[in-house]
Every structure is written in C-alpha cells, then in structure tokens.
C-alpha cells in the first residue's frame, strides 16, 4: 500500500508548531473532521485520547502513530504532521516527538489494520525518509515526499 493512497494533500502538514500532546491531538481531530465531515470532531478527539490513555502511541525515534477506531467508518484516513520541535508525548524511549502519523480507522478490521501499520512502518523505518519529512518546509513539499514513497 502506498502512503499516498491513505494520505491526501490536505492531510499533509509541514512545519506546524504545537507545544503539547493535547494541542496536537486537537489539531489532528480538526483536520480529520474536515476530511470526514460526517464524523463529529469531538468523537474523533475522544477516540484519539482514549487510545493514548491505554498507552502512548509514541513509538520511539521521534515518531508517534496517534489513532482512533471509529465504528461505522469504511475507509482509513491518515494524516501526517511534522512539528517544528519535539513535543513531550510519553514515548517509549522518552524522546520528544515531531513526526505524527495519525490514523482514523474503521473498527474491527484487524487484518487490514495490520497491513496499514506495516506499510507505514516500512516508510518510517527509513531514516532518510524521516529526514526528508523533517526538512520539508511547506505542505506541498511534504506531500511530494509522501507521494514519492513506494
């Protein structure tokens, strides 16, 4: 699966500046609501927050995968945000996070969810790719990097 099949141009935000986990999650829920107008923004935020309560989605190396499962949703929507500075996110390596790949996913389809995670992991496991994401100075540049990924 190509990243560009789940992340569109409006969901790629370079060089944003937020200073807390809460604000980042709020912004993600705002953007996700714009993509999924049938969903209530508050419900999206609640799903993201509920997942963080189970354990931080900060998976190390400055990367987090905030996600929320929504009942009744049919397709995966992903958003990629790069913050100008690392934010405390209770990550497993205690490092601040600046790359946020957020997912709003249908509830229940576990096999498909694992496939999506694997496709994302394949790209984010590439140091050079992460470096390019961090260096993107605007949204167009960020999306071009996402679109060029295999």
């Amino acid at each position, binding site marked *: 699966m190509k990243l560009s099949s789940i992340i569109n141009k409006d969901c790629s935000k370079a060089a944003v500046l937020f200073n807390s986990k809460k604000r980042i999650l709020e912004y993600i829920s705002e953007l996700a609501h714009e993509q999924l107008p049938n969903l209530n923004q508050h419900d999206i935020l609640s799903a993201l927050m509920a997942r963080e309560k189970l354990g931080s989605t900060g*998976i190390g190396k400055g990367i987090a995968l905030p996600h929320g499962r929504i009942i009744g949703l049919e397709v995966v929507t992903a958003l990629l945000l790069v913050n100008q500075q690392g934010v405390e996110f209770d990550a497993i390596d205690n490092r601040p996070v600046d790359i946020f790949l957020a997912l709003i996913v249908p509830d229940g389809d576990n096999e498909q969810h694992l496939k999506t995670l694997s496709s994302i992991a394949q790209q984010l496991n590439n140091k050079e790719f992460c470096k390019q994401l961090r260096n993107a100075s605007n949204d167009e540049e960020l999306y071009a990097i996402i679109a060029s990924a295999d």
Partner: protein
Amino acid sequence: MRCEDTFLIQNKCGLHARAASVLAQLAIKFDAQITLYQDDKSADGNSVLALLLLESSQGKEVKVVCDGPDAKGALHAIGELIAQKFYEQE
C-alpha cells in the same frame, strides 16, 4: 547463552501498535538481543516499527530468539506476554 521458542499470536488484534509497544518496552529491559521471526521476515524486539513490519495477525506463529546473558529470562518474559494476549481486554 542463546535460546529460542515459537509462540502463537492469540490476541484478536495481533501484533498491532499497542502490543508491539508493550513488547518493545519489555525487550528493552533485557541485555539479550531479542529477535522475532515470522515467515521470511525478522524484527529487532526493541523496535516498534520493525515489529509492525512482521504483520503478525491472530493465529500466526512467531519464533523468538534471545541471545545474551539473560536470554532465558527474556524468552520466558516475551513468551508469557504473548501467551497472556499482551494483557489486552477483548
């Protein structure tokens, strides 16, 4: 010391982000090098991204290889975590 065993992924969600994070946090506590194998893929137990690449769903078998001074304890701990379905409520 090197030891290995094969475990069945039993939890409904498989080795998804949370399960992979819990496993990596456990693996980090040991000095032993911990590697997971599934089919032709392998992953460093310390790396969530590498673990996600395994795409281990419910019903898959993963081989866990531990190599180092505390390999036996590491293998036992990882095996127990998988057997206990990563302590997830289903």
